[in-house]
């Protein structure tokens, strides 16, 4: 398999806060992440707020500069590119944001928003742009006669479709989708997920799909990587990771998904507290403070578990082989 995108030892730390008091802290957002995405493939990056998943998405596109590590896209090392070659390559990699309310310019008609990329990259003669905009809107399920309207005239789901048309305008091969359905109603969420699947089949797109709901992820992802405090703690085929999770954090995430089954709702793992702040890097296993694995012990507080192969996937837990029924709430 030739990878379309390859991410190697990606690290992103930044200084945050304290500009008045001088007490700025280092945020360890991403602490060494590796993954590959093949053409036409979907990798889902899953975790709670603050785990670094959005930072990975933005660093991959070099919207943020990585602290260290490499991002190779279509054979080009992005960190080695100058501005103009990076811009040319950006045409092939686009992003769809979570909030369709704030990611469209309210003062541009939606047609003008979709046309922007075509104009910047001079992909078409000016006279052909309106026609292309119309067919892009049609492809995402918006009536082309609406091109002259403004974002506030559309619902959340429609705005998300417009954001997708805007990303598709420059004919990318790769999309970073940053929580694209989290702000939508379940019924609309289903429409947008189906649209992503259709577009992938039609255009051979690859997705880095950032999300926190594993039931959503299961609908769209070929592979899943679960992140916690800036590192990947479990990664593998979607059916393997979601069907037979090995890392206790993945199990907790699955158990938290609200499924419409009153019986199942009674067997749940509720993780205590919030994820620890990314401004501290605890020694040993990053998940230790919230871990409920019966085998957890002092070793976990000193020795960081490596991401290693267990039962057909990668998992970063010293005790990934031990899977007591009582812990595995969903089986």
């Amino acid at each position, binding site marked *: 398999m030739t990878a379309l995108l390859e991410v190697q030892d990606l690290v992103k730390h930044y200084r945050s806060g304290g500009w008045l008091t001088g007490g700025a802290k280092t945020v360890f957002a991403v602490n060494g992440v590796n993954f590959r995405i093949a053409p036409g493939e979907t990798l889902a990056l899953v975790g709670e707020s603050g785990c670094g998943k959005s930072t990975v998405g933005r660093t991959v596109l070099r919207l943020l500069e990585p602290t260290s590590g490499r991002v190779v896209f279509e054979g080009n090392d992005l960190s080695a590119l100058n501005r103009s070659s990076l811009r040319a390559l950006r045409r092939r990699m686009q992003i769809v944001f979570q909030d369709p309310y704030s990611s469209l310019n309210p003062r541009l008609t939606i047609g003008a928003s979709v046309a922007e990329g075509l104009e910047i990259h001079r992909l078409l003669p000016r006279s052909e742009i309106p026609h292309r905009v119309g067919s892009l809107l049609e492809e995402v399920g918006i009536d082309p006669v609406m091109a002259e309207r403004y974002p506030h005239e559309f619902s959340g789901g429609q705005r998300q479709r417009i954001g997708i048309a805007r990303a598709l305008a420059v004919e990318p091969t790769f999309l970073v989708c940053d929580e694209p359905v989290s702000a939508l109603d*379940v019924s609309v969420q289903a429409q947008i997920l189906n649209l992503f699947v259709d577009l992938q089949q039609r255009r051979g797109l690859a997705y880095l799909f950032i999300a926190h709901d594993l039931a959503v992820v299961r609908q769209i992802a070929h592979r899943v990587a679960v992140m916690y405090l800036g590192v990947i703690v479990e990664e593998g085929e979607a059916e393997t990771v979601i069907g037979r999770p090995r890392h206790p954090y993945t199990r907790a995430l699955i158990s938290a998904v609200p499924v419409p089954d*009153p019986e199942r709702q009674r067997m749940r793992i509720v*993780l205590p507290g919030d994820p620890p702040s990314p401004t501290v890097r605890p020694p040993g296993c990053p998940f230790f403070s919230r871990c409920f694995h019966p085998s957890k012990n002092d070793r976990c507080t000193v020795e960081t578990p490596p991401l290693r192969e267990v039962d057909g996937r990668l998992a970063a837990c010293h005790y990934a082989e031990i899977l007591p029924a009582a812990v595995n709430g969903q089986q």
Partner: protein
Amino acid sequence: MTLLDVRDLRLDFPVPGGVMHPVDGVSFSIAKGEVLALVGESGCGKSLTSLALLRLVPPPGRIADGSGISLDGVDLLGLDPGAMRQVRGGRIGMVFQDPMTSLNPVLTAGDQVVETVRAHLPVTRAEAKQRAIRLLTEVGIPDPADRFNAYPHQLSGGLRQRVMIAIALAAEPALLIADEPTTALDVTVQAQILELLDGLRRTHGMAVLLITHDLGVVAGRADRVAVMYAGQIVETADTGALFQRPSHPYTQALFASIPRLEGPVGRLKSIPGSVPQPSDWPTGCRFHPRCPFAFEPCASAVPPMFQPGPGHDAKCWLLDPARLAAGPRIFSS
């Protein structure tokens, strides 16, 4: 015993050339200690319904004549403004979706709890502070004495929502209205908050009106469910019955659109189109333009509530006993 009774609630919003009714003839009741979930898509009128219960309908909207809301037998629509203010935050507690915008950013978390305690209970400042710290402890805030002095921006989304819940509980309400209390939160934190609400209603014997668009959130949390569409309740049932046998095509469609963790992965069944605008409610059954089973009467005649089972109501012509008696169902789901 009935705690809250809502009869034929209708809201009037003047628009050029007429009046529209985003909530249009809603009736339901909640017993003491019961959890009722009000479920529907954005724009179906569920949040306006909850605001109407508190008489907080944004102007120029108003509650139409002929609507009835009573709490413990007291007609809320007849109360003077001062008495109504005592009901809000007193007998009825409120938790909204977005804890960032519903908390006051320039007051500490603790002061906001104290404010509510003192507005409703005859206690001294020191007693109010004691009580506030006890409430913060009860809603699971770690180091409550420290967090008492924290401002909302210093708290995570989950902690902010816990502060909101502490404020809502301050005067020991008989009814808690929770409007999409977990929509803005991570799934893990959502699970914590739902667990917390469940525990609190058990310990305090509080009734809860849980408003959500996600039937997954309802499972195992609510005693009964009312499904709302286009300003009206279209189906009501005990949670178990509704999950086993959703009878309105809209409820069935909502279930089909939920992604599952088990079973084969297939195309999600989405509901075609979107919720109509209140200025433009369809004739007959309001769901008929999006309904896969619509037949002759649906576009012209408003269906009454039929009873597909005991304690189970659904507003759909498919359930008309006259039609069911006439022959086998020609519409399969």
